[in-house]
């Protein structure tokens, strides 16, 4: 049986210690917090930054879009302007600059949606206290005979509350 357990801690350091202890024992842990904990979570998990690939991809798309929009369509719709070049350099650079940024921003947003799996309106394990002043530690993949042991462990590290939770 897979019965997740959620411990709510009032302090960051006690929650991190509990997470390290549980992780070393082989459990999968998820941290919930009302603020970004940044480097404080390094002992638990170090993540790569995939967002940069999306940002770079968006910037390249923007580069091609800007060039095609200005130079490409200028070739398609020739607009003679008294001896001025059909393919003007300055506007091409300007509009390409803007479209690089626009597509970079849009693809960064798309990247966030993909890697963070948002939006997600389905059933999820969540306790509103973690949006206020509690730091949650969710332990999953616990064997039935180990649930009480995990609960005791969480309490011993200083959890205020330990609950058996389900997706809601």
């Amino acid at each position: 049986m897979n019965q997740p357990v959620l411990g709510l801690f009032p302090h960051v350091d006690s929650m991190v210690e509990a997470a390290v202890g549980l992780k070393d024992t082989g459990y999968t842990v998820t941290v919930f917090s009302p603020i970004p904990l940044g480097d404080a979570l390094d002992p638990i998990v170090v993540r790569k930054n995939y967002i940069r690939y999306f940002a770079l991809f968006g910037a390249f798309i923007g580069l091609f879009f800007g060039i095609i929009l200005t130079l490409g369509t200028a070739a398609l719709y020739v607009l003679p302007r008294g001896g001025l070049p059909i393919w003007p350099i300055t506007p091409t650079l300007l509009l390409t600059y803007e479209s690089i940024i626009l597509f970079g921003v849009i693809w960064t947003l798309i990247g966030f949606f993909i890697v963070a799996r948002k939006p997600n309106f389905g059933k999820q394990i969540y306790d509103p206290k973690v949006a206020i002043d509690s730091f949650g530690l969710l332990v999953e993949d616990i064997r039935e005979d180990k649930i009480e042991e995990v609960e005791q462990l969480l309490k011993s590290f200083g959890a205020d509350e330990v609950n058996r939770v389900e997706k809601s």
Partner: protein
Amino acid sequence: MDNISYKEVNEDVVRTMTKTGWKYWVALILCAGLAVALWGVPWGYQIYVGQGVTGLNTPTFWGIYLANFVFWIGISHSGTLLSAILFITATPWRRSIYRSAEAITFFSVLTAAIFIFVHMGRPWNFYWTMPYFTTRQLWVNFTSPIMFDVFAISTYMTSSVIFLYFGSIPDLAAVRDRVTGWRKPVYTYLSLGWRGTDAEWHWLSKSYTFFAVFIIPLAVSVHSIVSWDFALSMVPGLNKTIFAPYFVVGAIFSGTAAIVTLMVCFRKAMKVEKYITLMHFDKLCMLLLVMSLLWSYINVVEVFSGWFANTSAENETLRYRMFLAPHSYMFWLMILTNSILPLLFIFRRLRTSIFVCVVVSIGINVGMWIERYLIVATSLPRKFLPNMWHDYIPSLLEISVTVGSFFFFAMLFLIFVKVWPSISIYEVKEDIGFPMRKGFKRH
């Protein structure tokens, strides 16, 4: 913020959204009514009758509407650019004020964009500036600086909205957990199912950093491009290479002053003095002082280089702007409000005086509006041929539309503070620090 608890932050911010007194409704109805009466109705009349009701005439076909456009774009530089720069440089005092400042950006860009429609005369022809495939074989002229504007401003508006919304997702989730009724489903959808897991925070902070990095050069480019609407022309008084930095500096200057004015009103009305403290005004006023000095330097350079060039057209433009009726008094008023009054901020005691902050910040925005007005109204009436010279005086209708735009902006901001967490909950908590066994630890 040593005496504030995490719980208190949630309660206070949600309270600003859910508890509404009668004074709020009076202010909102007043602003909405005046926006319609002073802006909507005159604009409708102008569309019906035509541009003849304005003061625009040969040789001045750009008037107060475009001055307003530049002014509001300038105000927009307060929020997103300032927020992005302060985020990248990890400046802690940003946290309490940036959300409202970013909202100022969005609303002022919106107001500015509407002024383009007002100026056009025939707003229904706006689609002519959009590149789309047409059987008429017509295509937009990308060499026109007006087209640069279309792309720059639409990019800036899109990016600013994404930046504002994205940074608010955790707070929208916090609001979702505390509200009932119609608000519950709205904030449930807006928060995208946010739970505050370590993975979500990680991706949010990485993405937010990229947004900030993209937005800083974007904001600089937007006001540079707005300046090129003028500087790429051949008109004396407009054809200046210094216009791009001049506009960018002026925009940050006026935008920061707008933040100061609005934050004073906001903290008082919403009773959030413990989050927006005198320290914030101290820092903002220091920034105003720096921008004032930069702005003054660029003004001196502009006047000096024009005078030193000693061409008849340039000399006449300067003489007309600085010494002749009907605009010279505005020029010297601008110097007073933008170069002299901000010098008061040399003294810390005055930087932390709310009264002085309000007077000087309003003064700066009056001066910055005058600056934009003078750029248009003293250059176009004095071009190369004296027989074409003609003063531009805005009509009452144009002045009414201008005044109305301020009420429109105020109305949008009043709506914002009731539908959006206007102080960042999670970043204020970061300011308080991590709760550890031995007390709070700031990072």
